[in-house]
């Protein structure tokens, strides 16, 4: 073991690997922080570069760029209320509220610190628990995925600040949007109106960019400049983080664990981890009324969760060649190309390469702290820049980013359309984040529900028969009827009092 570790160190301490890692880190930070350019795209654009690199350096670029991009998606979310990646969408409102309260450094500091901690926790899980975690992942059939997606959708009401009815309505709009296209279990084109581009459906990223970024720009054009945030020195970024770690250590640990588990499940990934953790944090918080007003607790948990899922997402990829998320899907392609074929033999025959990957994850998460601080300092100038210069730049980023996703104008049209939809929804108090959640989860919930029914010949029993499915079902149904029970209980207790009073 020590011998392999030494070999792994030798593998990564070459100039090529170090330079590749540093360059990819800067690249990931920049791409992730630009609204409209996602972590997945950052990774996809790296693939041609990896052709010219040695295997370890090639993987180093992907590890570094994806970890950095997921964190730096928090930056525009906090400063401008425009999440850089879907993983940051769950708590962008909260982080922006903190910025308006003058706590931008605390919000972003929590982002970088708990992301790094989460990333390292995820890596440790990858090192120690890969085989048992992979067993868990492999025991998930479509029945379990259905309940998982169902629980994910239920987060919509927990996360939103507005009325639950409007949150659910938004989520249903999102589900309706996810019906568009041919990528449904029946393989039948739906709501395509004969437009070829609509066959592909609406991807979550352009929708997200539209409802957050474009709608934000439209609002900025129509409302007077908000009172400027008091001019003062941008405080220390890391100062309060140790206190937060002590105060919220349980939330952090829970975020790590949830992130690791969701990351391991193929198809779930960092986006879902952030949503579920933020909702959990609110549900179990001692002060849930503070959520949405600029309260750091949810940021701690969700930030710890989404970065933990990045590392653990590599478990099914490395063991079975099944991608945990889209980033891992790209990474698998690179692994094959470099002769590191995924499979259990990778852990035995190429153990030193595996340890090199672990080490790179840990290093990437450590250098995230200094790099992230520099990035936050640079980005914070946005707060002082006049709106008339910031907003056009954001529009440009949105247009370029949405074009680059599918390499066609359709992406740009989608972003513009969702900008208008998002603007109208926000003006009427419908939370757009819930709609994004519907779009992200819609395909998964439909696919898992329909295929499960095909497999069970139309019987719903297997949704409750399989042990893990039964547990998840109990959680989902419990969460659904719990508020009703509480309401009935209160009603029953209060009922006698007014009854006697009226007599």
């Amino acid at each position: 073991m020590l011998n392999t570790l030494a070999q792994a160190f030798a593998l990564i301490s070459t100039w090529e690997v170090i330079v590749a890692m540093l360059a990819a880190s800067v690249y990931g930070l920049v791409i992730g922080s630009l609204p409209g350019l996602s972590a997945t795209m950052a990774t996809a654009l790296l693939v041609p570069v990896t052709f010219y690199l040695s295997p370890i350096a090639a993987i180093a670029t992907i590890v570094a760029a994806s970890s950095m991009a997921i964190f730096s998606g928090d930056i525009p979310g906090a400063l401008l209320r425009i999440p850089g990646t879907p993983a940051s969408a769950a708590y962008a409102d909260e982080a922006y509220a903190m910025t308006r309260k003058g706590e931008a450094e605390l919000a972003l500091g929590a982002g970088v610190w708990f992301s790094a901690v989460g990333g390292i926790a995820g890596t440790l899980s990858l090192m120690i628990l890969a085989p048992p975690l992979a067993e868990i992942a492999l025991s998930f059939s479509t029945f379990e995925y259905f309940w998982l997606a169902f629980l994910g959708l239920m987060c919509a009401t927990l996360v939103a600040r507005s009325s639950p009815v409007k949150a659910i309505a938004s989520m249903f709009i999102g589900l309706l949007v996810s019906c568009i296209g041919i990528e449904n279990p029946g393989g039948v084109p739906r709501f395509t109106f004969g437009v070829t581009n609509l066959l592909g459906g609406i991807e979550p990223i352009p929708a997200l960019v539209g409802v957050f970024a474009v709608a934000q720009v439209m609002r900025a054009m129509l409302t007077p400049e908000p009172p400027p945030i008091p001019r003062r020195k941008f405080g220390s970024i890391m100062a309060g983080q140790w206190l937060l770690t002590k105060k919220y250590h349980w939330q952090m640990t829970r975020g790590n664990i949830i992130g690791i588990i969701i990351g391991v499940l193929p198809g779930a990934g960092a986006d879902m981890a952030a949503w579920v953790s933020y909702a959990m944090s609110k549900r179990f918080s001692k002060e849930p009324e503070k959520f949405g007003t600029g309260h750091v607790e949810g940021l701690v948990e969700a930030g710890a969760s989404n970065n933990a899922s990045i590392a653990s997402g590599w478990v099914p990829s490395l063991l079975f060649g099944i991608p945990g998320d889209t980033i891992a899907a790209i990474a698998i392609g690179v692994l094959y190309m470099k002769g590191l074929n995924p499979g259990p033999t990778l852990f035995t025959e190429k153990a030193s390469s595996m340890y090199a990957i672990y080490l790179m994850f840990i290093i990437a998460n450590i250098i995230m702290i200094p790099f992230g601080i520099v990035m936050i300092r640079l980005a914070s100038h946005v707060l002082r820049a006049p709106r008339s210069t910031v907003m056009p730049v954001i529009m440009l980023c949105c247009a370029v980013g949405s074009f680059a996703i599918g390499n066609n104008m359709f992406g740009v049209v989608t972003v513009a359309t969702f900008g208008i939809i998002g603007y109208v929804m926000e003006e009427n108090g419908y939370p757009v984040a819930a709609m994004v959640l519907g779009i992200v989860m819609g395909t998964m919930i439909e696919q898992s529900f329909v295929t499960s029914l095909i497999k069970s010949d139309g019987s719903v029993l297997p949704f409750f028969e399989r042990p893990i499915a039964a547990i998840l079902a109990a959680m989902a149904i419990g969460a659904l009827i719990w508020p009703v029970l509480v309401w009935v209980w209160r009603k029953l207790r209060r009922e006698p009092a007014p009854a006697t009073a009226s007599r």
Partner: protein
Amino acid sequence: MSKMITRRAFAASSAAAAAVAGFGFKPALAQAYPARPVTVIVPWGAGGGTDATARIVAALLEKDLGQPFNVVNRTGGSGVVGHTAIATAPADGYTIGMLTVEISMMHWQGLTELAPKSYTPLALMNEDPPGIQVSSTSPYKTVKELADAIKAAPAGKFKASGTGQGGIWHLALVGWLQAMGLAPNHVAWVPSNGAAPAMQDLAAGGLDLTTCSVPEARAIIEAGKARSLAVMATARNPVFADVPTLKEAMGIDYSTGAWRGIAGPKGMPADIATKLTASLKKVYDSKEFKEFMSNRGFGTVWGDATEFAAFMDKGDAQMGVAMKAAGLSKA
């Protein structure tokens, strides 16, 4: 470094934009082809098998012809979007693309007007036959045992997956069932988002068999979670030499496959097409290509422009019959 990447991606994107908008500038006639970068459209996402194959081909074409060959992923609509982009690009040789087997299937489903005839075929590069995989906990050790159990079971009892409804591996199953004299829906098809989720569900105990290609099932098989019983091909795959063909195992002479080839829009200048086919032959024969393909367990098949056209025509007719039988055809 980061700058270089974004600039390159931007160059590729703008080239595609120009192509989409129909602004493809006409090359000066005196200049030898290729005088400027060529766009290679891939109808599937970055990181997948088609993408990887296109990228290695593009890199080797670039080496041979001295101009950048930029791979652009035009995803969505089960391949319709990207295939349309190839067919509607200006036929000047500066936009080519990778066709996949779906082009001979989608028009039968009424999803598009496009068919193999809508392109200038350049070369066939690869074909992967479907396999028949079961979970390692499955009682069936040979494809014969599995087939007998399927025949004895009532229709719809066995569940199979590997791709979406009406996808290539679904048709492979239909073809195999028909060859055994069974109804096309005797085994129920469970649509999935590709081979990887299907293989995972097989291991999780949600399915009885998958009919995706053996390379797609490889990692799970090597993890000891599944085994491959047969391949629906004319010969064994050298990487998985112990997996028999259907003919060897049950005497059924049925084979099909998912293929990938390079083509341009219809009406490309003949001299440019000939030059590209010649260069693609060099790519196909190169050590790098062979090594890459065998590393991933992908099969290599060569067909020049005429052979590729004939191959697609034959496949197209075969697909039409299979899809009509399965009730998937609207044409």
